[in-house]
């Protein structure tokens, strides 16, 4: 079984972010960068599936050369090799899915495992677009995955409870938070990862039109939360809800 896992380099969710003076993006200089946590869950799941069924885990990232660091961490966890699609210009979800489609056509994976969304822009679109482009079935937000023969059974977290889907391979599956707890990359793993291959490709070489259809124009912080008020009784509460909050 061959599993392709996507890994995105994102800003650390614990970092205190600043908006660029131009307002058109987040300042990433000096900010700690990590692998998207949902993608780490995807790497872990791919490793478990391959441990069970045999096969290979290939990790792919689209981005600048620095994204090799995040591929390397996945290799240190145990993935076999990496593909880095180099592109340092703005890309939207559609552009990323076009590039990943090309990688998938070359790699011919049985399963493409992806985080359900990246924690930086929370777009939640690339996996869905990629499945459509490839004509693969898709099951998103998995909290349990089992494979039998040519069929993946995926339990997914829906609003009303757990929905179970059967998807034919090859397919795209995205991971939710409760699917697993990713392992640590051990020290021997980190050492071994140095020798694992990362195949670098240039996005431009695919000859695709990657002009973003979506452009980020303006970023601002959400308004500061106001302090709560303590009211003496229910009557006052109702009055305030009516006259000040105007929700009744």
């Amino acid at each position, binding site marked *: 079984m061959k599993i392709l896992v996507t890994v995105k380099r994102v800003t650390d969710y614990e970092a205190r972010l600043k908006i660029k003076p131009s307002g058109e993006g987040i300042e990433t200089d000096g900010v700690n960068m990590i692998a998207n946590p949902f993608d780490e869950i995807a790497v872990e799941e791919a490793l478990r599936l391959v441990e069970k069924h045999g096969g290979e885990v290939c990790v792919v990232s689209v981005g600048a050369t620095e994204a090799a660091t995040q591929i390397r961490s996945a290799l240190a966890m145990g993935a076999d090799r990496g593909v880095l699609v180099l592109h340092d210009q703005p890309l939207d979800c559609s552009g990323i899915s076009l590039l990943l489609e090309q990688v998938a056509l070359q790699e011919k994976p049985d399963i493409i495992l992806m985080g359900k969304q990246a924690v930086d822009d929370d777009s939640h679109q690339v996996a869905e677009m990629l499945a459509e482009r490839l004509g693969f079935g898709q099951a998103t937000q998995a909290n349990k995955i089992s494979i039998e023969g040519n069929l993946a059974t995926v339990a997914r977290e829906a609003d009303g409870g757990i929905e179970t889907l059967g998807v034919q391979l090859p397919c795209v599956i995205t991971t939710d938070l409760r699917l697993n707890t990713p392992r*640590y990359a*051990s020290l*021997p793993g*980190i*050492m071994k990862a*140095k020798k694992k291959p990362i195949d670098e490709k240039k996005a431009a070489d695919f000859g695709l039109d990657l002009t973003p259809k979506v452009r980020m124009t303006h970023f601002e912080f959400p308004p500061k939360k106001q302090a709560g008020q303590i009211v003496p009784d229910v009557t006052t509460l109702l009055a305030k809800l009516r006259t000040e909050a105007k929700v009744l």
Partner: protein
Amino acid sequence: MIGFELSEDQKQLRHLAHEFAKDEIRKKAAHYDETGDWPSDVLGKAFELGLVNAHIPTEYGGLGLGALDGAIIEEELGWGCTGIATAITANSLAQIPVIVAGSDEQKRKWLAPFASEHHICAYAVTEPSAGSDVAAIQTIAVKKGDKYVLNGQKMWITGAGHASWYFVLAKTDKDAGHKGMSAFIVPKNIPGVTIGKKERNMGQCASDTRGITFEDVEIPVENLLGKEGDGFVIAMKAFDHTRPLVAAAAVGLARAAMEHAISYAKERKTFGKPLWHHEGISFMIADMASDVEASRLLVWKSASLLDQKKKNTLVAAYAKRFAADSAMRIATDAVQVFGGNGFNREYPVEKLMRDAKIFQIYEGTSQIQRVIIARELFAG
């Protein structure tokens, strides 16, 4: 390494050690501090992740990590809990003499098993009446045929209760001062080795410290490290490697104390404003931050000299002295920032203050480090 920038590998090592310290060590730190039990579950996990014995050369099954790599890991482990970090790292102290002075055969026999299974070994030099004054030890090894017969007592031996072998310094010539000392590997399970009770210490309670008695213990001559009379030099050479590590753990502790002080000084209000708006507090914390940074740079320098195969004795003494004394002061000041709460066991900083003290004592006291530094300054 004048750029002070870590390599990608080193960042990964640090990340792993930090996550481990946060998720595994810190969760258990208060428990093991309270009970004094041996943290075997944490040690087992650390072993599986390769955080133990990583400095053993690759030809003997280790990862062959450098001194700077080791120091980077150690700071994070120390940030988690220096008691548990000491339990994890005490192995290195006993292994390093074998790495620096052992024959190929000795390395195969005594180091290689650490790669496949989690073993403990311990460094046994200190005695009830000889600590800083190493040449005053009284343990004696007398050669009889193809054996040495060992008699004497060791004290404050870290990991003694769990070790499978000990690095032991003993006199082979009573009258030759430090030139009469020899170094031996002594397995635990041979007749005449008696392990004392676990000592109850002020801090670093998770670490196991005991006395050991040797009574007519017969050790084969092939367990002698180097030649007769090499013992003192071997033990001192080991310090060049272990002092940067111990100093790194002190940096980790100091950093933890500082972080606690910062978050408390933001949260706690006095006289209508957060603590840190009072200069008395913010200056204390500013001093903590500069000393943590300075300690770390000394540690990195002392370790990277070793990696460049240069003599680091002097810088290791700077690092050990400065990091240990700074950690003690920073932990004490952190308790001060916390006020009455700092004195209480429900808050994290009193443990750090108890744990910090030993850094000024073990691996050469702060006074011994000054002796080393002064001797160097006035040499020739």
